[in-house]
């Protein structure tokens, strides 16, 4: 009775490539699933296209199967593994991520992507990666690309609510890693601590985390004239730029987080309550 599956990964990717297009939504196989903390999971997915095209800051749309949850769940790519797998790290927030957390290796998941414009890592400078909680994943990918490119120094400053669940992935990819949790302070504490060693002229900050945190980082960096790139979040309708649901206000107008971002220059963003 079983009919051929409509979208196994490889044929979809191959056909799209032959047609000179990007592959649409496809059904991928989960290769690994690990609990990192209470309600925080690491999932690896086999998808050669996503693995090959992932920029630092790119995300993928993952789709739950429940008919109450049709919209995409955007998740940042944390690492590319072995050339044909991507890794995501996600927190259980609601119904969709709850469903994801119950998947196991060998199960399937629908995916679209990679999506979005990434961090600009072309400048040669000391990169400070400032991440908060579930904002850390895209910064791990940024660290991975910086390491692959070679040359640039990198320091990660990571803030967590409690368990430092992402340190072990970031650690091998940066020159220096400092992390902190709510009991001890926040990423601004870490930035203040790092400041004496910084040359603002030779520093680039990449940040991802809750918007208020990124606002605080941007304000801190602004005062010191350190160029900063922020990886933003928004509720999405499509994730690939067609519906205009995911906007953020910038000096260049209302832009789409999913397609014009998710990475924006801190200076271009109009933070809630005016600029910075």
């Amino acid at each position, binding site marked *: 009775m*079983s*009919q*051929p*599956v*409509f*979208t*196994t990964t490889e*044929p*979809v990717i191959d*056909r*799209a490539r*032959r*047609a000179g*297009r*990007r*592959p*649409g*939504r496809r*059904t991928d*196989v989960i290769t690994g699933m690990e609990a990192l903390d209470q309600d925080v999971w690491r999932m690896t997915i086999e998808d050669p296209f996503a693995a090959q095209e992932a920029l630092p800051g790119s995300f993928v749309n993952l*789709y*739950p*199967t*429940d*008919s*109450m*949850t*049709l*919209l*995409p769940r955007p998740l940042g790519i944390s690492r590319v593994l072995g050339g044909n797998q991507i890794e995501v790290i996600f927190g259980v927030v609601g119904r969709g991520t709850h469903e994801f957390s119950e998947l196991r290796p*060998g*199960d*399937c998941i*629908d995916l*679209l992507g990679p999506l979005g414009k990434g961090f600009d890592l072309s400048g040669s400078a000391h990169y400070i990666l400032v991440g908060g909680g579930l904002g850390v994943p895209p910064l791990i990918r940024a660290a991975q690309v910086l390491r692959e490119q070679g040359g640039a120094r990198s320091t990660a400053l990571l803030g967590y609510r409690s368990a430092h669940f992402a340190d072990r992935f970031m650690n091998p990819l940066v020159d220096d890693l400092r992390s902190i949790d709510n009991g001890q302070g926040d990423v601004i504490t870490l930035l203040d601590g790092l400041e004496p060693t910084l040359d603002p002229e030779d520093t680039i900050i990449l940040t991802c985390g809750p918007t208020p945190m990124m606002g605080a980082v941007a304000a801190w960096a602004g005062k010191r004239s350190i160029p900063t790139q922020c990886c933003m979040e*928004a*509720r*999405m*309708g*499509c994730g*690939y*730029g*067609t*519906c*205009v*649901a*995911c*906007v*953020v206000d910038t000096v260049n*107008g*209302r832009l789409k987080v999913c*397609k014009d971002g998710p990475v924006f220059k801190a200076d271009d963003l109009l933070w809630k309550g005016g600029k910075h």
Partner: protein
Amino acid sequence: MGEIAVNDGSIMQEDKAMSAGRDITPGMDPLEPHRWKHGTVVAGVPWKNPVGTASGTFNLDACQDYYDVADMGAIGTKGVSPVPWEGNPSPRTAETPAGMVNSVGLQNPGVDRYLVDELPRLKALGATVVTNVAGHSDDDYAQVVERLADSPADMLEINVSCPNVSHGGMSVGTDPEALNRLIHRLRTMTDKPMVVKLSPNVTDIVAVAQASVEGGADALSLINTLVGMRIDIDTGEPILAQETGGVSGPCVFPIALGFVWRVRKALPDIPIIGIGGIDSGEKALEFLYAGANAVEVGAAALLDPVAPVRVARELDDLLDSRPELADLLSKGKTWK
């Protein structure tokens, strides 16, 4: 054939796709080279197949990464207003059972930008273009239609049914008299085939349809979104910043089909573009049997960029075994 012991992975994949509210045809490859077999004609404009993209769910830069826009029967573009509009505050989407609710509020770069950017590029790529016209007032609509009158757009679609703007939009589309006046005025300004896009948020769809036709509409498209909302039970507040928005997706399918059916019964000759919840060739076919000349795919395209092409391909194949219907459509006629 004895007891069968285990499930295998391939079945799982198909099951999942179906349970996610997506209608899919196993093995279908929308990007495979394809010669379209069954065209349609809407208000004199030939479409190479009866499936278009619904306004607001197509953006050229986003979609052409995934498919050839010339493969669609028509490309319906986002509503354009006389000047750039910045739309509603965020959040602009929420989920609903087998659907979604949006309150984008017609954010768009304005007609001037459209005329130098998306429209010429679409035409250069070989697309048949249905340009969606938005306004806050009669004058707004008139201004846009005037600017589009000698553009390369193939058809104009007057959006008098957007529930997400406070003036114009749905308020014109739900008042037959005001609508009749507006369409009359626009009719004098252009010879282009003019489609009026109707709102489902009305007591009497036939009155509204008739008012449009008497005003000079060449065709009707329906439905736009139904007013709806979601509330966050943790805060007790609406999820959308704008409180209410427009519901679309598979959930509206039977409702949309009923509207098309009733309009077709009342107005046997007006060309109709059926819209609402279409995510498969089969659902598109139901609209054609309900009396539509063509259909458009909206929300389904948000959930998979290639959905519109896939629906077109599935429908093209389904029409092979329905020569009578295919023949009627190719002549600009409809079922019954």
